[in-house]
């Protein structure tokens, strides 16, 4: 199969709707197809990877730990739009420290989150072959 650039765009907060959970399920299945996969967190999508999610009070399953597994699935490009974080009074510190292990660099742990400006993210988007929005 050809290799295409797949981009998964997340713009909705988790739990209020199912899209965050079900889009993550697509990403995990998609990992098996050896495509060039990226994720983008824009607008309220940034809340999907916020630290400290605790869902007992609302009776839903906390699926945020699943994002930590993305590195093991070789999904290492998680773009977060700076402007979206700033508009929400958030910084990188408010997000889970998601990492991947680089086997070409003695398994050194490297951050998967790439904080980018709108202009930079626009260029990343424009370079994709397949964009799935949820």
């Amino acid at each position, binding site marked *: 199969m050809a290799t295409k650039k797949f981009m998964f765009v997340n713009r909705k907060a988790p739990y209020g709707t199912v899209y965050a959970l079900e889009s993550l399920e697509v990403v995990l299945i998609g990992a098996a197809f050896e495509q060039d996969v990226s994720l983008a967190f824009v*607008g309220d999508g940034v809340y999907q990877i916020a630290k400290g999610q605790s869902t007992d009070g609302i009776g839903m399953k906390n699926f945020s730990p699943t994002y930590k597994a993305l590195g093991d699935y070789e999904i290492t490009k998680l773009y977060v739009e700076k402007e979206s974080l700033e508009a929400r009074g958030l910084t990188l510190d408010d997000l889970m420290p998601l990492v991947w292990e680089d086997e070409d660099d003695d398994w050194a742990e490297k951050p998967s989150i790439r904080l980018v400006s709108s202009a930079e993210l626009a260029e990343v*988007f*424009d370079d994709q*072959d397949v*964009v799935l929005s949820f």
Partner: protein
Amino acid sequence: MSTLHTVNKSPFERDSLSSCVRLAAKGSAILLIEDGALGAMAGTDHSDMLAGVMKDVSVYVLGPDLAARGMSEDRIIDGIQVVDYSGFVELTTKHDTCQSWL
């Protein structure tokens, strides 16, 4: 590589149009569909935001969605082109990738 962006939500309801405008690269196109067609109307609180990007991005609106909502093509922002579903299909052939802003 150029992208056809579709926006299907009204700018009064959601930030889909403003996010798309912010993140659409130069040379791409935006097609307004469904409730997103309302973003094509001139003289609204959001018209300047869209008009401002039109020197870099071509903007289209799906005629049937305007008509359904009782909005006349005469009152859309200058420079926005009205297309039908076959025009929608043609736009997808002219651009390499489609990105939906829901």
